[in-house]
């Protein structure tokens, strides 16, 4: 959170600092399978965020005491590269914040992956933030979801995540770094698009119950766009091959 003394005006004439309306998402672009060695991977460019996600497994869970004889265990590691942000991020690797985000991301996918098919195995999800501009945990979950689908690991649904916040008494979706620092509230949510189940809901700041409901509605609406981009990214490699032979079929 930034200092409230030098707080900038976040919304002027109904437009935000980067020219978006309150309900407008940033530009999102997803590429499926950029990493050859992984079982599945994805690269997302969400505004100025650049995030790489890779999935390995199912493979034998090591060390052995982490194995569960009834289901696969999911291991998730979210890290920010030392050069990812405008501020210093110090030493690379896990800090208190990264451990928290790894935990909530793991819990999102534990609800989605059919883990009981692979007893004794582990599924590793790596999320590496190369460039950050606010909302990286939501972008990371959206990206990892594509990576998991690309790997062929059976899932009940393909979750997406996005955050909603409040600035100058207006609800705004998909906040960037400056909005995140100076806003009154921030609420990242991960949702299964088919069942509308909520897999992640965190909140920082203050929102009234009505605002939370309205925020969730905004997220559902934005989710339709995000899900569409996720689906296009997964279908693209197959449709490219289809295009090649369209004339001959």
């Amino acid at each position: 959170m930034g200092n409230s003394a030098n707080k900038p005006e976040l919304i002027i004439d109904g437009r935000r600092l980067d020219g978006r309306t309150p309900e407008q998402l940033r530009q999102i672009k997803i590429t499926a399978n950029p990493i050859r060695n992984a079982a599945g991977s994805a690269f997302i460019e969400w505004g100025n965020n650049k995030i790489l996600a890779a999935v390995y497994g199912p493979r034998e869970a090591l060390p052995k005491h982490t194995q569960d004889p009834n289901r696969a265990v999911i291991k998730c590691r979210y890290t920010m590269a030392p050069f990812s942000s405008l501020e210093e991020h110090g030493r690379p690797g896990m800090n208190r914040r990264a451990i928290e985000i790894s935990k909530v991301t793991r819990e999102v996918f534990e609800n989605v992956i059919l883990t009981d098919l692979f007893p004794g195995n582990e599924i590793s999800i790596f999320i590496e933030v190369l460039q950050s501009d606010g909302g990286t945990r939501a972008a990371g979950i959206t990206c990892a979801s594509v990576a998991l689908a690309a790997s062929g690991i059976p899932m009940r649904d393909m979750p997406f995540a996005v955050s909603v916040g409040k600035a100058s008494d207006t609800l705004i979706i998909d906040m960037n770094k400056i909005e995140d620092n100076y806003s009154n509230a921030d609420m990242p949510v991960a949702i299964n698009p088919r069942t509308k189940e909520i897999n992640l809901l965190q909140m920082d700041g203050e929102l009234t119950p009505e605002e939370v409901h309205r925020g969730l509605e905004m997220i559902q609406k934005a989710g339709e766009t995000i899900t569409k981009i996720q689906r296009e990214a997964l279908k693209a490699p197959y449709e490219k091959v289809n295009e090649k032979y369209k004339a001959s079929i």
Partner: protein
Amino acid sequence: MKKIVLPGDIIADKPLRLDHTIVEEGKTCSTVIGMFDEAAGSLIPLEGLWYPQPGEKIVGIVEEAKLNTDVITLNAPYKGLIISKFSETSMVNGDIIEATVKELDKTGTIILVRPRVLYGGKVLAIKPSKVPRLLGKNDTMIRQITDGTKASISVGMNGLVWVKGGNSDLATDAIIRIQEESHVSGLTERIAKMVGSTGQPHQPQPQQQG
């Protein structure tokens, strides 16, 4: 009409008994990225893992040859195990073998039987979900490649393929092409053109009376 489905897509409004699907609230949903054929009622995964079934043939690499058991790497979330006292084949670390799945035990280990060592050649790793396409109906596709290139090929259901002899480079190219284009119709004809074989069993030539 074939279409690409993704995890969570509803493919039918009634419960269907189909692989790679789950039934929730009376509706059938896909759990993988795959091609769904509504008319035939089949869901073929485009990406996926190998689920071992007894009787399937595999190709593996000997990781650890011991006195009583041999541990086999299968490029899968399962380890293969050959109990040496039931087989007379002797093998050393690094050998490529072909064997049959007997059973998958509760600890995620596959018991293999009838091993055969494959000498020389090379091993390709392809996606296990593409192996049925590589074999083709009644093995027609793989027969096309072996006929056209005169290479010896052994296909394991775990996704490892052993190739030796003949025009093995052309065979390798054909196998990789099948992996990339498995979801596009007309593949059999394209591969036939590539390797120069129809894949039909050879008709015996009538002997000339002389």
